[in-house]
């Protein structure tokens, strides 16, 4: 029976669009989770290419080194779920791009690396696209301390992470913890999109 319910959820999610800003450790893993769940359309943006150093945590493969992340991620998503429509933008997002690309999305996921970029998208969405749900990832460097990871809600701004651990030479971002936060973000997206979901047999 659980297969039927999962299929029903997937069919329900088809009408929604989620914007993902950044395709690194947070964005690539979050996008894949949302594609598996059945979100109909993903709008992804990043300017970077896949390097060997990305493979310790980001959803790319060794034979994709040197390719644009947005193109590699679109390919990976379509190999997982060909029903997902992926709009891929090869650009370094600025304030006006965020308004242009993400205003029509149902939910926006912040998946940048740099604190300055996180600030930029939060300020842009809160002031230029007020009311739009924005799920951000803050603090996931290192390993262990799973219990410090949490979700915090401030109106339409949802914060996932430990809010303290900053990446440094001695504290890198590694697959498990960034993967947990990326999936927490995807989970918060589903929580928003499924708010009015009513199973047929209940």
């Amino acid at each position, binding site marked *: 029976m659980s297969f039927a319910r999962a299929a029903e959820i997937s069919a329900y999610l088809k009408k929604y669009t989620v914007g993902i800003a*950044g395709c*690194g*450790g*947070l*964005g690539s893993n979050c996008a894949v989770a949302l594609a598996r769940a059945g979100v109909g359309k993903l709008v992804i943006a990043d300017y970077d290419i896949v390097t060997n150093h990305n493979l310790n945590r980001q959803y790319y493969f060794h034979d994709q080194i040197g390719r644009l992340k947005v193109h590699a991620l679109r390919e990976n998503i379509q190999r997982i779920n060909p029903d997902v429509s992926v709009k891929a933008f090869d650009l370094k997002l600025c304030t006006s791009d965020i308004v242009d690309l993400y205003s029509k999305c149902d939910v926006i996921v912040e*998946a*940048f*690396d*740099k*604190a*300055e970029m*996180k*600030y930029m998208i*939060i*300020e842009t969405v*809160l*002031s230029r696209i007020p009311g739009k749900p924005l799920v951000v*990832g*803050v*603090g*996931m*460097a290192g390993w262990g301390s799973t219990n410090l990871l949490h979700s*915090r809600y*401030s*109106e339409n*701004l949802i*914060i996932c992470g430990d*809010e*303290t*651990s*900053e*990446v440094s030479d001695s504290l890198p*971002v590694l697959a498990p913890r*960034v993967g947990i936060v990326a999936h927490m973000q995807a989970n918060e997206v589903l929580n928003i999109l499924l708010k009015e979901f009513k199973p047929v047999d209940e």
Partner: protein
Amino acid sequence: MKINLNNKSESFEKEQLTITELLALKNYTFKMLVVKINGELVRRHEFDKAIVRDGDDVMVLHLVTGG
């Protein structure tokens, strides 16, 4: 005054504080801070002017690099 700071009740001797004063009292010395008063975003250049009063709900988010 008594305010709600990051979902916790906090008391201050002063009847009102600017965001800059509040951040100093709470030892928030970080650069990348997102601040909301009663759900409204306060931009960085307004930290000296924006006033927190009794009963206000204040959200402070410290952004760190990594992702």
